[in-house]
């Protein structure tokens, strides 16, 4: 179940990495702190899950080995989270779509047959409720703010929507986990996610884009060009100084 833990953990890790790029550059100091807060929560989730995955290995690796020494095609994060930050609107839309998904996922994951995952989900769901409150609040403010803000977030929504498809399609790792009662079937998260998202988009006066059957799934290791560049940066110190302790 290492791969399943990585599927969830890598998503949190890569999203935390993206949010880390914002710190010191946000539209207001308060938002620097807010984004850092979310990044820290996500990084905490990632560390827990990667540590768990490492312990399931026979070779005694660590969370850092998994984070810093794996190649891009071995990462199992959602493609959505490796997309560039873009402007604040695009970052908020990305966050909102992921938060709505994590709410459904962690809610169900609390019933996992794997106690470590159930434990993680119980903690993470509280964090995610706060993240969702933050991101959905901003989707509404920007969607129903000025003409410019509306245009920007609608554009972002249109651009990112195709990456939501894979949230509800089980990868091979997920299929295995479902069979063992470790993970919920992603397809079962769709209805809840959809209605939650629709409610916010309506209040935000945003148009829900048409669904697209987009099949390049990060969960299967099929990544965009963005991931290798992101990892080149993230992994640089460990790659430059192999074997060193930090």
């Amino acid at each position, binding site marked *: 179940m290492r791969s399943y833990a990585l599927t969830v953990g890598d998503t949190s890790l890569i999203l935390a990495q993206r949010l880390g790029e914002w710190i010191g550059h946000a539209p207001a100091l308060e938002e620097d702190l807010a984004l850092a807060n979310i990044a*820290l929560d996500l990084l905490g989730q990632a560390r827990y899950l990667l540590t768990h995955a490492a312990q399931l290995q026979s070779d005694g690796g660590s969370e850092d080995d998994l984070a810093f020494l794996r190649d891009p095609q071995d990462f199992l994060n959602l493609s959505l989270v490796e997309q560039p930050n873009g402007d604040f609107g695009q970052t908020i839309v990305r966050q909102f779509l992921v938060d709505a998904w994590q709410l459904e996922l962690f809610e169900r994951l609390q019933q996992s047959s794997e106690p470590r995952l159930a434990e993680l989900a119980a903690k993470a769901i509280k964090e995610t409720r706060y993240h969702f409150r933050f991101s959905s609040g901003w989707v509404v403010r920007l969607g129903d703010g000025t003409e410019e*803000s509306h245009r920007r977030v609608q554009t972002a929504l249109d651009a990112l929507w195709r990456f939501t498809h894979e949230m509800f399609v089980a990868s091979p790792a997920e299929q295995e986990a479902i069979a063992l009662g470790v993970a919920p079937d992603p397809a079962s998260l769709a209805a809840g996610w959809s209605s939650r998202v629709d409610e916010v988009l309506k209040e935000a006066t945003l148009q829900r884009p048409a669904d697209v059957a987009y099949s390049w799934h990060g969960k299967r290791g099929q990544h965009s060009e963005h991931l290798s560049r992101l990892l080149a940066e993230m992994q640089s110190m460990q790659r430059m100084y192999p074997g060193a302790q*930090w």
Partner: protein
Amino acid sequence: MYTQGLDSLGADCLHTSAEERAALEQRFQAKVDAEERIEPKDWMPDAYRQTLVRQISQHAHSEIVGMLPEGNWITRAPSLRRKAVLMAKVQDEGGHGMYLYSAAETLGVSRDELLEQLLTGAAKYSSIFNYPTPTWADVGAIGWLVDGAAIMNQIPICKCSYGPYARAMVRICKEESFHQRQGFEIMMTLARGTPEQRRMAQEALDRWWWPSLMMFGPNDATSKHTAQSMRWKIKRFTNDELRQKFVDITVPQAEFLGLRVPDAELRWDEASQHYRFGTIDWSEFQQILAGNGPCNRERIEARRRAHEGGAWVREAALAHAEKRRLRDAKAA
């Protein structure tokens, strides 16, 4: 510059006579001498107010500009634990900036005005943040030396005469302790690591030692503001006093790390029980103050891009709040 509003109560009002003003000043100074706190609504000399606005806002600007040299390494932190700690530290610095802007705002100036001063170059911030962080070891050196120097400056200000500033400093000092510890821990890990890591640590110390000493400001003999600031209990110790204390505390730490302080004249003086150290080259300091340091432009540019780039976001939030207000009013 400051509020031109009619509500300028407590300011050096034109309506008071010279005698009344003298009496007010006397009572003010008596309060300060008695270690009583001055609060926002209290009468205070204009010069006291202006000195505080300048000092508090410079401190605030330093915190937020200070987010950038370390923020530079968040995406490349060499372990997940270091990444988390660094994110938390930089987040704290943003928070410290906010506490200080809050304190400054109690004196009649708005945060937007202060940010405007920073972005136009009218306001200063600590020159230390105009140095680059070319390696991971610089993150360690900043935590160990720069935060160490900052703590030394900040602790006495917890007893400063102006209430909101003192309270902000108490909060900041409580949070600061982990900042220095994480920096020292990074240096320790490097110093005990591979030859390349040791070299990285030594070179970072070489880069940051003298700028850290300069953080305490000019020598007392040449420092303009010190005397008055000490009378008003805004400043509690002189620049040279704090600098000496910093050297005395930090040199043994460097020795513990097995690193060499880049000062050929550094030696322990048994008679005075202090370290004697070399002369600071103030010309470098002057260069940085004049805007010609390695990163002056980049730091302000980064802040300007964030502020201007985010204008549409701030406007949208206000526009939305206004729409809600109108809708609620209609519904009522």
